[in-house]
């Protein structure tokens, strides 16, 4: 007998140990995410996947599904909290979407559209985060980092290099690279690393073919992040 929980009233089957988010996506239901990646253990930091399970707020990516649970996700309350979290991520960094190379392919921007974020709501922090253009193939624009640590994890666990790490604390937390000089060029980073291709926003950018795909024809210009993520899930299963 397969076990199941209810997601917004609809039954979702799950296997032992599967998270609410994984089970939902597998069954064709979208719960948003930023720091979650199917090839890595859950990180639980962005909180975009927040749902209400048995009356409590939990991260869907990091919470194992339980038999009989009633989970609320696509409700005005949860979507309102997600919009608030997106607004926080936008004001915390420096996101000038119109001039960003990642525009149209950026998950943060796509989620902003998906959750109808019409204004930043809060005051901007305007942090000072100088870009690192030292590397011949890759540019780091820290202004847009959302601290999902996907580059950290990919470089450490897959590429075997540990090029990236976080330092600082609280609102002063920031990304550093593995070199005393602080320059990417002085690490063993390569444009072919998984870490070079995993950033969900516009921090890790490949030099050369700028704006190769015109804005308007990019991933999230053609379909919503909801549609794309569900299609990716289907293709990978």
């Amino acid at each position, binding site marked *: 007998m397969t076990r199941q929980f209810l997601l917004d009233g609809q039954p979702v089957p799950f296997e032992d140990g599967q998270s609410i988010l994984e089970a939902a996506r597998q069954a064709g239901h979208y719960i948003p995410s930023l720091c979650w990646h199917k090839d890595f253990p859950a990180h639980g930091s962005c909180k975009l996947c927040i749902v209400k399970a048995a009356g409590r707020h939990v991260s869907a990516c990091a919470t194992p599904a339980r038999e009989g649970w009633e989970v609320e996700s696509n409700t005005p309350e949860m979507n309102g909290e997600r919009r608030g979290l997106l607004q926080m991520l936008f004001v915390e960094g420096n996101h000038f979407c119109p001039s960003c190379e990642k525009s149209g392919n950026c998950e943060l921007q796509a989620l902003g559209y998906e959750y109808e974020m019409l204004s930043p709501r809060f005051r901007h922090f305007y942090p000072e985060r100088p870009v690192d253009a030292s590397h011949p193939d890759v540019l780091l624009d820290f202004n847009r980092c959302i601290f999902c640590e996907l580059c950290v994890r990919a470089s450490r666990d897959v590429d075997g290099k540990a090029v990236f790490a976080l330092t600082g604390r609280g*609102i002063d937390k920031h990304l550093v690279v593995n070199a005393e000089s602080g320059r990417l060029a002085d690490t063993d980073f390569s444009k072919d690393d998984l870490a070079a291709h995993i950033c969900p926003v516009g921090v890790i950018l490949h030099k050369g073919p700028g704006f190769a795909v015109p804005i308007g024809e990019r991933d999230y210009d053609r379909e919503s992040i909801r549609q794309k993520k569900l299609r990716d899930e289907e293709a990978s299963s």
Partner: protein
Amino acid sequence: MHTQPPAALDSILHQHGHQPTELLQILIDAQALEGWLPAPTLTDIARALQLPRARVEGVAGFYSFLHTRPAGRYRVLFSDNITDRMLGNAELMDALCRKLWIEPGKLSEDGLVSIATTSCTGLCDQGPAMLVNGRAISQLTHRRINEIAELIRQQRPLDAWPTEYFHIDDNIRRRDTLLSLTMKPGEALAAAIARGRDGWLAEMQASNLRGRGGAGFATAVKWASARNAAGDTKVIVCNADEGEPGTFKDRVLLNSFADLVFEGMTLAAWAVGASEGFLYLRGEYQYLRPQLEAVLARRRAAQLLGADVLGQTGFDFDIRIHLGAGAYVCGEESALIESLEGKRGTPRIRPPFPVTHGYLGRPTVVNNVETLAKTCLIALHGGEAFAATGTAQSAGTKLLSISGDCAAPGIYEYPFGVSIARVLEDCGASDTQAVQVGGASGMCLAAYEFQRRIAYEDVPTAGAFMIFDGTRDLFEVARSFVHFFAHESCGFCTPCRVGTALLKGFMDKLADGHGAQADLADIDWLDRLLKNASHCGLGSAAPNPVIDTLQKFRPAYERRLVSLDFEPAFDLDAALAEARQLTTRDDPGAHLQTHEEDTP
């Protein structure tokens, strides 16, 4: 090309066995060499431990007491709890800065001294307090500040400063069963061993002892889970991070009752079958370390630690002390474990819980200092006797750390169930407007609630009890706590990292006289999101002081609002002052109309 690390650093690395788990301890020791951690030092440490340099930099950047920039030969940190503020720490800091010709937060030009603030140092009953190069000095006065300025100017080494500066009082004002216990080291342990592991755990179950660190979890249940968890090496951790503003009872237990604490850890090890023990000591209390090491050495010599404890074949248990370095979040048990492993103190995803996967993946019990000390009473007098005191759901006594507006601040031990009013009377408080119970993350109680009782089922507390009389401004109290949480957020999760910074911005906007009704709505909204969406207890407790004071002392907020709708955080007209000065204009055309309601 790579050179050997300098000899002094090399010997530190050797002392710590080149273990990556010792990274934080190594950084603390390495910093003592020059007062900060220069970039090449981090590179040397990374290489010696075979860790990525970025990881070492990540850890060094996490802890407040580690400096990756020069911080001076004298590093002065004023404790900045609200109780220190009430005792005038700001004026004292100002005076010291003026005498030494420096700005707060900046290094003096000659590289001699820096002066800044730090979160509560746990000396609220004898504040204002400071740390100089990590050593605590309490009872600051203008006279003492003058002397300190002179000592720094003369570059007198800390060891040559008057010893009475470093004297810290216990200030025990009321003793109940724990603080009046006189026990020979080993007595409780012998009693528990005589009962056998099962018998001892059964006594613990009968005692109904609940954790004194805040959450109130049943101690016997935690121990039984760790005992039943798979894994050969099990770990007992004593949580002496005591970072909650206003709390200092663990400091007193460690200073004068260390044998009870270590015996409690050994009692836990006996129940659980653990072989490894850690005392996680907050950096602010590092001055206690030598005497604690001496107690541990004595206990080893008396066969109360080490191999075959008290002659029990196979009962091997020892305790090591790990220092923290200025991070409140490391009191959260899974962040504490990360820190013990030499990492950034970021709370883990739970489940799995530490009792099954803790330190290095081993089953780990984390208990508060007071919880562990109390287990000695249970071993000596039995679980039933313990359960018979206190209230139905809160057995035994509780140590309160009392500070703020009262005649006799200090440590008070009461059976659970004592009313707030009774405590206020005993410590000589009068005209009390509010009491903050449980620290910044606890509850703010107004006068109409003073008949409530200290107990898990009514007013739970980890021990802080800060008193505010009628002259105090509860908005400023809440604002200081909001600053504390923003400073201490580990930054892992979005709601707390950004939310505490935003909340701080709103509180400052109100304090600066730019608040509007719309801000109160945004504050409400932020409070809810922090509570709901945060990854750990720090973020979910961060709005508590605001929620409570907004509800109970709303006029303190409303007094500060300039308008009933929206008001920008800055004053446009004031921003033009410089331009007016430069153009020597002051006519009406050079001013902006910013307050609609000002115009008739």
